[in-house]
């Protein structure tokens, strides 16, 4: 191999398909053995972006992260929530084992501020994880975030709409989430080290009280959620 090619391959931004999993990547266990088995290093990639693509809120996309968030909240560093669509609810977070003292919510007034906030949180290295709900993503902004995550060695999670699945992205891990019977179907769209063809079905802790509803279903729907 020529010397110049060798030096190019030394670049941390370049990964090669044949060195999956073995990479000494600092990974955060997801708490779901079936998912850990699919992810390089056996967990969420620290120091990189993870994209979670969903059609709509409320299918278990946060429950998927709860085991990791709970363990991160016991370590140093903030759990930063940037521009969340709703209010992260204290009682439910506490029930998932998250230490609320570590939680920081930022509600930037504009989209540009939101991107700035996410970048600062990643770059500072003071956060265990950044969760961000950002709009108007373009490749340049995504690349900046990915670089910031590498600099600060912080796990960045972006929640995006499923239609972004077709776009190119510098994120190290891209997962498409879909509801499944009693759980969540996770399609790995991109990971470091080769594609995965089959989705993995994770069973999620079910929401709400165990009691069955005695009432018959009313005719309802959501205006917007």
């Amino acid at each position: 191999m020529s010397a110049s090619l060798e030096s190019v391959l030394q670049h941390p931004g370049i990964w090669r398909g044949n060195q999956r999993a073995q990479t000494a990547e600092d990974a955060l266990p997801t708490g779901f053995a079936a998912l850990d088995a699919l992810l390089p290093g056996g967990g969420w990639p620290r120091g990189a972006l993870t994209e979670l693509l969903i059609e709509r809120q409320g299918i278990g996309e946060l429950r998927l992260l709860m085991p990791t968030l709970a363990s991160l909240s016991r370590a140093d560093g903030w759990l930063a929530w940037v521009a969340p669509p709703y209010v992260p609810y204290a009682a439910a977070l506490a029930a998932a084992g998250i230490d609320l003292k570590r939680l920081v919510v930022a509600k930037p007034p504009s989209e540009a501020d939101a991107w700035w906030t996410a970048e600062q949180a990643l770059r500072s290295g003071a956060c265990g994880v950044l969760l961000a709900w950002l709009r108007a993503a373009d490749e340049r902004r995504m690349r900046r975030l990915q670089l910031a995550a590498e600099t600060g060695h912080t796990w960045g999670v972006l929640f995006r709409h499923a239609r972004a699945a077709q776009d190119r992205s510098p994120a190290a891990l891209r997962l498409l989430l879909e509801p499944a019977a009693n759980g969540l179907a996770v399609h790995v769209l991109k990971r470091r080290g080769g594609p995965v063809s089959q989705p993995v079905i994770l069973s999620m802790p079910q929401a709400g009280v165990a009691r069955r509803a005695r009432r018959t279903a009313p005719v309802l729907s959501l205006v917007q959620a």
Partner: protein
Amino acid sequence: MLWLAFHFRALSLEVFSRGAAAPAPLVVVEKQGSRTWVIACNDAAEACGVHVGMAASAAQALADGLVVRRRDPSAERESLAGLAVWAGRFTPSVSLAPPDGLLLEISTCLSLHRGLGKLLKQARSGVTEMGYAATMACAPSSHGAWLLAKAEIEKAIREPARLGSLLAALPVALLDQPPAVVEGLERVGARTLGECLRLPRAGVARRFGQALIDELDRALGRVPETRAFFEPPASFERALELPAPVQAAEALLFAARRLLPELEGFLSLRQAGVQELELACRHERRDPTIVKLGFVKPTRDAGRMQLLLRETLGRTRLPAPVHTIVLRAPLVLPLSASSGDLFQARNGEADGDLLLERLRIRLGKDAVHGIESAADHRPERAWRPCQEQNHAAAAANRHRPLWLLPQPLPCHDGRLQLKSGPERIESGWWDGGDVARDYYVAEDRNGAQLWVYCDRVSGEWFVHGVFA
């Protein structure tokens, strides 16, 4: 005893010039009799041919754009007091030597600062940071150190014998004696302190007064000295007049940086920190612009203050040029001295606070908050945003959704399937915000799980949360 003396040789000039990085040609003049003389000039003025002792009118003729300021003794007193406050970071025993000197007793605090060399280095860089120039000397007696500093002999003497030989070579003009006494000494051929000491004591005392003998004895450390120590003020407020009005944030930051070491000294002497700082920027014929700085935790770290000051000033729009800045610490909070970190562990806590402070500057204080749970059964009141994380354990409830909608949304036509419930919540009749609701978990056609309730008064359905 070991004394450290500072002689601020250009104090009368620096009170005007230290607020800017590259000041214009500047002279300080003083009226003596009917004429006005130059008593100090900066390098820029000297380059134009101005020198000390010149008539003010002559200096003005030499240099173009020369700024002439009348000597301001009250500003010098204030500056000296500010310096004394700063020196409080080294030792609590600080004594003023007006108009342009400070004397610090440092024998008791040497080990705290890891030796004399380190202390002197810190002192030197601190003085420069504040925009002053000083001659520093150490000696076993305070007056001895002061004479050395005035003679510009920058030495650290610890043995009294060596001090004696050094002092012997100094001219008598340095002594704090009336001009008549100095002239008289020179007339009898005693030009240096050494020659003065060789004269018979009784004769000198009779001819020139006991005060001269006393001063020489004090300088050599032969008699104990009594010095009044400086009492630091109870609150911190320091003004700095800028040499010329400025509007650029960079120039303001430069000036504000001059004041931060004083604040740091003030806080470390009082074992305190600040959580809020105010920088008032005074304009001509206009209300001052107040720039506020907030810290997550009380701090006295000048570097951190400077960092936040830079970001805050960068985001502040000033309506007019600023002629004076005033730094104020409205509330001083106790803060124990920092203990050294044995293993140099990564201080994640400090980094985290800095991040929050930076976010708050750009996004606003309320846009960045933590979350805590509150003791209330009504879901919308069972949480609240908080600025400071307290240590109360949160009330966990696994039947709650991870997302709560800020406002319940009414449901309209379509289909939701109720999965489980009801959970009845009735509360708040006593404060006017009463609720009577039956909560259910529902699933919509896309498989999303929602927290819905039926209002038992109106019978209408609302969505209140999302099980994300």
